[in-house]
């Protein structure tokens, strides 16, 4: 799957749109899959993540449940469909596929700790799905179409009282995507659910909030972009302050975390706020910066989840709690990985998180927004730094006397996958130039929706190879 995703990335990097029309029905009538730069980027991001999480899982986390791998692959399938589809309702279906798979994965491994967060997660997402349908319904009831390109054509033509309806519908979609992305005040389901999930699942879930962000980035610039007349930039005035508050909340949560996984779970929320703030400002630079940071943070957070799990497995009763305990096994290896992850996540040089934040900081035009964004982001980084240094030094360095009841040593699959995933941040630094060029081009492509609209004119054809592959 990684290979095919990379092939698609290469295909998409020329800036063209490739479509696959199911049943060869001309859009907007049939469902189309649309491959553009953004879709390809998300596919590669997910494929890489999926690969390493899967290797990790095959190192023992998949035990006791034959369904694990199936659910895992279905989850990836859902993600891939979500990234490729060019149809609003099909996006809903893709969301459902990946959600139901995630429900199953979340509950994987049993144990009572997961039940309640799982229940909350499922319930809230069911309400989210209901909202999604209402939003789609409203938009369909005004425009009479579901194809996103067609919507981009039709939304600017909405007039009169229908404007109110579309506004309400669009805002509902924003809430749904915000729920998936875990933006405040819709983020509280996340920390416990992620912190208690099995590590490879939590790591894979690092991309789940990004689906919400993806959906915002996909739908809003396209449909409610600059050209949408009265509906232009719908909801973005809400999004910006909320993103900053989310960022702040994430930082507070991270600071107050009592276990590594909780810390990382709040890091997910920090990333969400960090990502959405520049997105809400709507500039090409902001979007580009956010996409760059998105790649970095997704892999980093996933790596940190895996590291935390390894720490749990090597630390006996103390698990990943931020308390003092007897010395763990493989301390050097794990502490180095944690250090790398923390530096990348905290946005310190020289790892990729820093470059993402740098791009975000640079993307804002001078003004009130700049003051807010800089202030919150930098103060947030400072507090995150304290949180990570505190957690790391207690967990890895503060050892009490005593004997660790010889835990099982790590196996190679687990340690190698964790290591590589965590160190991907270095690869991003090395490739920072090409990646930022790519995200820049992606942001430009997203900003100018004429290309996307053109797929309506593209005559459908049968592509040489199928676009979706469901194997890893």
């Amino acid at each position, binding site marked *: 799957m990684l290979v095919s995703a990379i092939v698609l990335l290469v295909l998409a990097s020329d800036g063209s749109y490739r479509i696959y029309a*199911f049943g060869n029905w001309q859009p907007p009538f049939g469902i189309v899959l649309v491959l553009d730069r953004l879709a390809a980027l998300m596919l590669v991001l997910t494929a890489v993540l999926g690969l390493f999480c899967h290797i990790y899982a095959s190192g023992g986390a998949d035990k006791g449940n034959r369904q694990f791998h199936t659910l895992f692959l279905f989850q990836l399938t859902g993600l891939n469909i979500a990234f490729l589809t060019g149809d609003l309702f*099909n996006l809903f279906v893709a969301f459902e*596929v990946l959600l139901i798979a995630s429900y199953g994965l979340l*509950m*994987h491994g049993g144990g009572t700790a997961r039940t309640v967060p799982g229940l909350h997660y499922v319930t809230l997402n069911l309400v989210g799905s209901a909202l999604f349908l209402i939003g789609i319904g409203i938009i369909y009831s005004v425009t009479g179409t579901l194809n996103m390109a067609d919507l981009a054509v039709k939304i600017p033509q909405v007039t009169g009282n229908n404007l109110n309806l579309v506004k309400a519908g669009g805002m509902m979609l924003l809430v749904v995507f915000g729920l998936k992305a875990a933006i405040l005040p819709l983020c509280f389901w996340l920390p416990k659910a992620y912190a208690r999930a099995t590590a490879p699942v939590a790591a894979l879930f690092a991309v789940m909030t990004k689906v919400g962000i993806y959906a915002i980035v996909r739908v809003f610039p396209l449909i409610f972009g600059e050209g949408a007349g009265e509906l232009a930039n719908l909801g973005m005035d809400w999004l910006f302050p909320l993103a900053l508050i989310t960022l702040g909340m994430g930082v507070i949560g991270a*600071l107050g975390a009592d276990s590594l996984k909780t810390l990382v779970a709040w890091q997910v929320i920090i990333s969400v706020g960090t990502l959405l703030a520049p997105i809400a400002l709507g500039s090409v630079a902001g979007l580009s910066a956010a996409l760059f940071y998105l790649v970095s943070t997704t892999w980093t957070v996933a790596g940190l989840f895996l590291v935390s799990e390894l720490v749990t497995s090597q630390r006996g009763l103390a698990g990943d709690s931020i308390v003092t305990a007897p010395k763990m096994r493989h301390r050097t290896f794990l502490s180095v990985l944690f250090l790398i992850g923390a530096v990348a996540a905290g946005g310190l040089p020289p790892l990729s998180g820093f470059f993402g934040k740098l791009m975000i900081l640079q993307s804002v035009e001078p003004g009130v927004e700049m003051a807010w964004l800089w202030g919150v982001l930098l103060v947030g980084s400072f507090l995150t730094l304290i949180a990570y*240094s*505190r957690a790391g030094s207690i967990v890895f360095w503060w050892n009490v006397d005593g004997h660790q009841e010889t835990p099982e040593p790590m196996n190679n699959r687990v340690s190698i996958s964790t290591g590589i995933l965590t160190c991907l941040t270095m690869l991003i630094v090395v490739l920072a130039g090409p990646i930022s060029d790519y995200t820049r081009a992606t942001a430009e492509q997203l900003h100018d929706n004429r290309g996307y609209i053109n797929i309506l004119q593209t005559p459908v054809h049968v592509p040489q190879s199928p676009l979706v592959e469901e194997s890893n």
Partner: protein
Amino acid sequence: MSLPLVVLLPFLGAIAAPLFAQGGRTAIAIASSVPALIALAALFPHWSVLAAGGTVLHSYEWLPALGLSFSFRLDGLALLFALLILVIGLLVILYSHYYLKAHENVAKFYSLLLCFKGSMLGIVLSGNLLLMLIFWELTSLTSFLLISFWTHKQDARRGARMALAITGGGGLALLAGILLIGNIVGSFELDDVLAAGDQIKAHAMYPVALTLVLLGAFTKSAQFPFHFWLPHAMQAPTPISAYLHSATMVKAGIFLMARLYPALAGTEQWFYMVSFTGMATLLLGAYIAMFKHDLKGLLAYSTVSHLGLITLLLGMGTQLAAVAAIFHVINHATFKASLFMAAGIIDHETGTRDMRRINGLWRYMPHTATLAMVAAASMGGVPLLNGFLSKEMFFAESLQLNLPGLWAWVPPIIATLAGIFAVAYSARFIHDVFFNGKPVDLPKFPPHEPPRYMKIPVEILVFACIMVGVFPTISVGPLLYSAASATLGGNVPDYELAVIHGFNLPLLMSFMAFFGGLLMYSQRQRFFDFHARFKEIDEKAVFEALVSKFVNLANRFTGWLENGSLQRYAMLLVVSVIAVTVIPLINNGFYIGENGLSAIDWPTGIAAGVLMVSALATAVWHRERFYALVLLSVVGLVVALTFARFSAPDLAMTQLSVEVVTIVLLMLALYYMPSWTPMESSKTQRIRDILIALVAGTGMTVITLAMLTQPFSSISAFFLENSKPGGGGTNVVNVILVDFRGFDTLGEITVLAIASLGIYAMLKNTALTPPPGDGLGHAWTRDHYPLMLKQIARPMLPLALMVSAYIFLRGHNQPGGGFIAGLITSVALILQYIASGMIWTQDRIPFRYHNVIGLGLLFATIAGAGSLASATPS
């Protein structure tokens, strides 16, 4: 290429060092020295260019969009610092070789040390501000790891964290400052920035940028009020302290101010912020240093004080002051490094650093004592030593500040006062350690001279102190000139490096300081007594307490918001939706579109009434669960009728089947659950929820009404036209499902399949205890399988299968289809289960399921299989 190489080499060395771990300590030490030697060799050829006042620039593009490039730039200032870093670095490595104990992780030590060195070199050699910032933060990070090298010591961990927080945090401010400067100048290249000084200073954002940059510099250079991290960083192994606090880490802030001097200095803001901070730091550090009983503590506060001195000099804004500052950087680095090393030797040999216990070491280690006394004398500003020269320049400059009126007296007085303190603590270092009676209760006794080679670095440094003190022009003249020229942008004032400038006011101040200091030291007990009246604050403990207070607060705050209550989360979700839609909906109002309302026929009206009443009744009587379930099934039934009423037979059928299966599933669940919901919410909460629900309901009503009465056209005309010719069926809904939008259906089936898998997986670990009787206290009836039901259930299955086949086969042209067919089969099977039980039924179907509720899975599978079968023909 050579400049990047200089920076890169230590990092390569850091990677290589652990590889030499096999070869023993010596191998690592040698391997670690190689990068510095090569780097020195690489810098050497550039001297001719620099001596002529030029700069060397090696630049490579990296991230042009960010303004970030691999620019390395060498000028006098950079060279001066690079030399300090490299030479003292080499000495530290040599020293460390003897300092570190056998069991310690030498590889890690050298590796980190080299990383740190590389980062420092990066700072001084960067030709791009962003690049410099990267190295800047790297020094924070690597110094954090170095300070906490002895991770088992709590003080080391805490000191390191505090250092990281202060310097790393300052780095973030610096980042903001640099970005602002970059915004103003339009480039982050040092050459551009230095050339744009006037533009920067004229810009409205200059005060902000200046403040941010200075925050970075002050935190790094331990200026008041951020000075407190530095003494606690003394928890590091002594070679590290020697390195960090003489030549490198803390000098980075000084370097930054000197580096950006042409761009930022020369304004009133600069003057007041920098010089006053420096002055405060100078005095405070010197004062506290006197009272430190810890040898390294004394040195640390003395470092703080000297850093304040340099800062003050830079802040004065005169060119001569800047030269003096640069000069003092060199001098301080040499004497402080040697003093730290001496302190390390003493610590090493006596096992303690407490000056109350260490006395009279002259008798045990005269060689070391001589070296330390010379260095300390330099620190105290004794003539013929380098410390004296720069201090004289400082005294001279303090007299040159043109402050109005009585204020003109302030700088010289403070300078003299600081001088007095400096002499006092230097005297203490000499007298209290090497004389002053006999040692008290030393952990190691008697102390010896250290290994021969451990003294070499100290000797070299002390030699440098003397050389500079006696022959300043020859020894550092050209280097200082070059550095000063780089700092001042080429405008070097006339100055003279001489041992004695004649009898003048500065010399008088020096005398006052010298004798005042000695006097103060002789009366030290009074001062100690005076000082003891104030409670000493352990900044580390305060910082730690502050952090844990914050952590607790954050934890409590998080717990208060994220309180684990689904009710709250769901409420937030609903309220969010209401909040973001309320404005458009109020604008919309109770709007009826141009299509207007159509007439109501009263059966529909009554059905709608029934639906509304049942829905509301479900909510009202939800606590009686079975009753609510019955009401819910009425709602489901009427919804199905509604679909039928408004031309959707397929939907009606699907809704019916799904509804019954859902109700059966809910009843299965209800068996295990309490049959009655306790009253848990408070009245306020219920009223709140009712209000929220009403608002949500009203919102949906308003939306639906507006939507239904608006004219509309959709893409569906295409489906109606192409269903038969293109999709081959007359039931357009089903053709859409399996053809036009077949991919949705595939996804839908996938959802069903995954749900089955998930349910199955979940049930495997679920142990439910069936209750013994119903909620009224009745035991369950013994009558499991009533006769009549059993009899009717038998023929029902074949009939249902046939109806399924019928509904399935006609789906493409008439209402029906795979999913409904599947559900009918499922329902017929449910009937078998109800009538005859699990075991009986399971014996007769080819699948096996282990648990009661696994049936849900079975139904889903059958339904999914049904719709899959109907979807594939497309």
